[in-house]
Each structure stands twice: as C-alpha cells, then as structure tokens.
C-alpha cells in the first residue's frame, strides 16, 4: 500500500500529471483517506504556482550596464567593420 512518505516522494509527478495510470489511481485512493496528504498536495501545488508569479533572479543593474557597454562597443566595431568592407 502507498504510504504518506511514498506519496510525498512522487507528489510533483502527481501534480504535473506525470504518473502512470496505476500509480495515479493509488495516489487518488490514498488522498481520499488521508487529510495530511491532501493538505500537502494542495500546499505543494500552491508553492509550485508561486514560482510562476515570482520572477526571481533579480540581476543587479551594474551587471546589466556592463553588458550594455560591451554590446555597444561590439556594435560599433561591427558597424565600422561593415563600412570598411563597403
């Protein structure tokens, strides 16, 4: 029988609908009987959705400006390279 810990191991696969038919069914049966796991699945799903709203990896402005500078230089070199060929 599927225990709570087993279910916790495959919870993301359940949420993403990546389980086979049989495993999916045994999760569903377990969830009918187990409040702890129902809450766990609900909360894990909410946690997952949080990531969609959270655009992390805030990059610092200095880093972006350094890229701007290098791109600007490279664009200039590129342009003058082109006009030399013309």
């Amino acid at each position, binding site marked *: 029988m599927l*225990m*709570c*810990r*087993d279910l*916790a*191991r*495959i*919870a*993301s*696969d359940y949420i993403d609908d*990546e389980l086979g038919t049989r495993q999916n069914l045994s999760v569903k049966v377990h969830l009918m009987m*187990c*409040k*702890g*796991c129902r*809450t*766990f699945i*609900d*909360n*894990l799903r*909410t*946690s*997952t*959705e*949080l*990531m*969609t*709203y*959270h*655009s*992390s*990896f*805030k*990059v610092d402005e200095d*880093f*972006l400006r*350094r*890229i*701007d500078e*290098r*791109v*600007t230089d*490279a*664009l200039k070199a*590129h*342009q003058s390279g082109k006009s030399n060929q013309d």
Partner: protein
Amino acid sequence: MGTAAHTETELSLVERMKEGDPSAYKHAVRHYSPSMLAVARFYLDHANADEVVQDCWVSVIDAIQKFEGRSGLKTWLHRIVANRCKNQIRSSSREVVTDFSDSLDPDLANRFKPSGRWKAPPQARFHESAEALMETEALNDCLDKHLSALPETQRSALMLYEAHQHASGEVCNILDVSASNLRVLLHRARQKVFLMVEAFQETGEC
C-alpha cells in the same frame, strides 16, 4: 515554450537586433539576462556564469543574423548559453555534481514515522492562492532569500520550468539532464518552497 511561439514584439525585436539597434539590445539584455544567468549558474560558479552571459551577448550580435525563428528567441539564447558553458566545463574538465539519489527533501523526510505515515502532517492549507500570496511583500522577500540559498542546479531547473515556462524536454536539453533527473530537481526545489511558505504562514517570519 519549445515550439516557435513568436509574439509580434519578439519578431520586431529580432529585426531591430539584426539591424544593430542599440536600444533593442538594451531591452533584450534586461528581458533575457535573468534566465540566461539561471542557465549559466546551473553549470558554473557565479563569477564564470556572469562572464559567460556577457560573452554570449557579444556573440549574439553576429549570431542573430542567422536566427531563423525555428525556436523562440528565449530558447535560442538559452541554448547559446548552455553550449558555451558545456564547452567551458569540457576544457576545464570540471563536472556538474548533483545528487539525484533521493527525491525527498531531508527536512520533509524527518516528518514521517518509520512506518511511513506522517508524524508531523501539514496542519493547514495555505490561506490564499499563489497570486494573492505573492502580494505579501514580506513573503516575496522571504522567497527571494530562500531561492538564492537553493543549490544552483535545483534553482535553475525551477526557474526554467516554472518561472519561464519551458517545456520539460527543452529544459532537459538546455541543462543536459535526463527527464527523470529533472523531475528530482524540480521536486526537491518545490519542497523547499513549500517548507518556506509553511514556516512563513506559521510564524509570520522568514
């Protein structure tokens, strides 16, 4: 997404980049660099990842001329970053070490009895939807803090799959992991987010 789903704005952005328009690059650098860093940090330490992303942007100036739009611009950029990282790793014979052995987070594993039942089950459902939760500024900050503490591999997988909505096949490609290992990375990262939000709801503190 993995398919070539181009928006009008993306197409015109690509056109302007092909023409060498500096403001187009400025916009693109801000829009795409965060997820490009997520890719690079999967493979490399921070300093090297920063450098690779910078180098990639310079190389894009030439490469964009050959961009035909078979994939989206974001996917295309992510592949460039991944390839450059892989080359760098190959030349330094450094390997990405990741533990795929257990899909259960150790802190969550402690909450089960030896029998496999919950010892400390989650007590309450999170009060609100994800969208409403994100409006809590303190939680947002807390999430930032915890995400930056995640192992890079987990965080990159989470970013690309969840926040940037790449299809899983595409994430496997970019990060060079098997489908089953991607599942482990995602699940481990989600459990961390779950534990963080749970602690936050219970204590009101990060």
